[in-house]
């Protein structure tokens, strides 16, 4: 059952008919307008088709979710592996660093850092990205999110290092890095998948939070978090403007969480079978 739900989850970022930036509401009516034949979900506060913006928003949310998690994975795995394999002082130092990062109030830091980059469109690194302001978001989230991954990887490495096949490889004279890459990493990665899927969901929520507070995707980009902010004013009279993006976030994150659950269930059963 879980797997089925998980597959339903992430919306495909296919583009549907309309342009999310065009104002299509009739000029005489005050936006937002209710669902109609032309605009299946109605229009937003500036008269733009809500459904198209929602779909485009999916792209942005997924961009942030996936890329931020990917960056965190990269950094986390590298550092965790180094700590787990090298041991000793490197390990101690890296673990202290991880503790430090974990202790920081991450959302506030993310906010502060993003606020410090006023012009993502002109910053050299970000200029090449299709959506520079989104780029800031996932870069920052990725750079702040590696700590728990590093911990996990290190734990796995410590465990695996003592196991037979690793010892065997070393006995055969294999070089350190080779051992790491060929033997340890692949095995350590399995539990990471769960963490990764949950991480994607978490980062999507963070993006919404950041956009709600005003730092995040810049207009006219249709980020779901921004759409919630814009729509809250009209909540009682025209609830769909605020409800739709919220529900979208809910469904997507739920999907990823379910996916993570399903994978972890399968891993657990496999592990238990192996033990038994």
């Amino acid at each position, binding site marked *: 059952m879980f797997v089925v739900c998980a597959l339903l989850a992430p919306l495909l970022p296919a583009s549907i008919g309309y342009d999310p930036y065009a104002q299509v509401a009739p000029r005489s009516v*005050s936006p937002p307008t209710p669902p109609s034949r032309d605009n299946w979900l109605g229009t937003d506060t500036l008269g733009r088709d809500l459904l198209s913006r929602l779909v485009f928003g999916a792209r942005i949310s997924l961009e942030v979710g996936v890329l931020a998690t990917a960056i965190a994975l990269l950094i986390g795995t590298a550092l965790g592996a180094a700590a787990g394999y090298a041991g000793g002082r490197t390990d101690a130092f890296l673990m202290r660093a991880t503790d430090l990062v974990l202790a920081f109030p991450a959302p506030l830091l993310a906010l502060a850092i993003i606020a410090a980059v006023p012009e993502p469109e002109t910053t050299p690194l970000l200029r090449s990205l299709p959506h520079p302001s989104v780029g800031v978001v996932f870069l920052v989230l990725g750079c702040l999110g590696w700590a728990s991954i590093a911990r996990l990887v290190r734990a796995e490495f410590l465990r695996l290092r003592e196991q037979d096949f690793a010892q065997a490889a070393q006995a055969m004279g294999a070089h350190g890095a080779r051992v790491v890459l060929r033997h340890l990493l692949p095995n350590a990665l399995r539990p990471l998948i769960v963490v990764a899927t949950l991480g994607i969901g978490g980062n999507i929520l963070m993006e919404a939070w950041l956009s709600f507070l005003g730092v995040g995707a810049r207009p006219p980009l249709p980020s779901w978090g921004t759409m919630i902010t814009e729509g809250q004013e009209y909540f009682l009279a025209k609830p769909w403007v605020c409800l739709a993006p919220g529900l979208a976030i809910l469904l997507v994150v739920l999907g990823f969480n379910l996916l993570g659950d399903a994978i972890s269930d399968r891993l657990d059963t496999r592990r238990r079978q192996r033990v038994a």
Partner: protein
Amino acid sequence: MRTSEPRASLPGLARAALLLPVALAGMAFLACTRGRPSPERAEQVFRFRMHEDPPTLDPALSNDQFSEAVILNVHRGLVELDPETLEIRPAVADSWTISPDNRVYTFHLRDGVRFHNGRPVTSQDVAYSLRRLLKKETRSPRRFLLEPIEGAQEFTDGTSDAVRGLATPNDRTVVLRLARPFAPFLSELTMANAAVLPREVYDDPQKAYLRAPVGCGPFRFGRWEQSNFIELLAFDGYYGGRPALDRAVIRMIENKTSALQEYIAGGLDSLDETPDENDTAMMAKVGQEVHKYPFMGTGYIGFNLSLPPFKGNAALRKAFNYAVDKKYLWEVLIPGGNIPANGIIPPGIPGHDKDLPGYPHDEAKARSFLAQAGYPAGKGLPPVALWVNTGEGNRQIASQIQTDLKTIGVTIVIREVDWAAYIAAVSGTKDNAGQAQMFRFGWYLDYPDADAILRPLLHSSNWGPAGNFGRYKNPEFDALVDKALAVTDPKERAELYRRAETIAVMDDAVWIFLNYYQASTLYKPYVKGVVLSPLGEFRLPLERLRIERGTH
């Protein structure tokens, strides 16, 4: 250690852990069922809202309408501006004379004016307050208000110990001599910055007065809990008689939706936000409580005339003006608020020209001017940055302008940043022109005089960070504005201002002229004595209000 021991203590712990939240929940439930405290007390309280704590409560440092909202109720100056009629009326001074050459102002102080700490007000207090405003150490951004006084500059610079043009011949008289006639001088003295302060409080090096101001106005300062509320209490010794209200409470609520809900639920007696006019459900609930009134101020998009592409290219600026559909913006997109503007000087201010053509929406003209500017159909024009500061309304306006300009082929990039970064980018420094090519700004007038908007924003003496962020320099414009200062005949002044405005608007297109502000406020029906002031929603003369419950 026997394993049973810790285990025995555990259920106890667990039980306690379970009981505590149950107790909390029970308390919460009781609190709910207790119901809200009945508002029908003998006490008269008026509750209104601000987005956040006022930036300062020091009259010398006040530079915004939120600080002024509190200051103008706690303090009084020599004269005050009647928020309703916009006439200058006596306050601490009960009469004054102006010499025939318009240079000497003699004020006679009222008897019986006291500070909140009980001490009577004397002319030395007035002199102290004015000197404090001028002193360099105070760092007042509005020091310039008193510059027309003879010897003011020398006092500020430190070359003189006293202000030559300020004299207090006796306890009840203050004499101010100006270096040159300056028509708006009396209006300037009505501003919050000219409040009369008690020296014993405001000389405090610890600056306790920033959290506990003391003045001679109708309300004393009560409690201040940051991000929560400010409380003002009626002052029995006020010279104008004790106010009808016992207390006024200012609640800090940032989120507009939340604030509206709080008003409807009865937690606020007045609100500076109103629901969308098309929201039938809301309007049915509070429609009759909405009050709309003009508010002396102008909103615009400024062009930085020192930066490309706007430098020296009036045709481009005119193209932008014709491209933006202000009527749609203010009548359909964000209805019920402001009035589309045709120029700079708002209606009701002498000098306002209702026949000024301005730039009504005209796509064809926009395209032709764009071509004239050297960018036919937008070709060759790199994306232009429009800076706004974070705020729920700004984004919408900026997005609409972005869309409007896109139709003629111009790409706008929106830079939405917080106020600190915004003001830094827009003002720049005396040497560098700042970064903002276009920026959204609004200006409300402190008193009904066109000088209050033309000079700070467009006169070349304020070029750059002093206020003329657009860096506009036109000697003809300057000359007209300067002349109007020296002239006293109101008709002549109005004509001079009209001509100056025409130059800035029709010839030079210094801004995209967006709107004249219209304020829209909610007031509960039981609040009486409400003043809908053209000076803005936060000009709240609380001493005129009273609560009459039973009239719903």
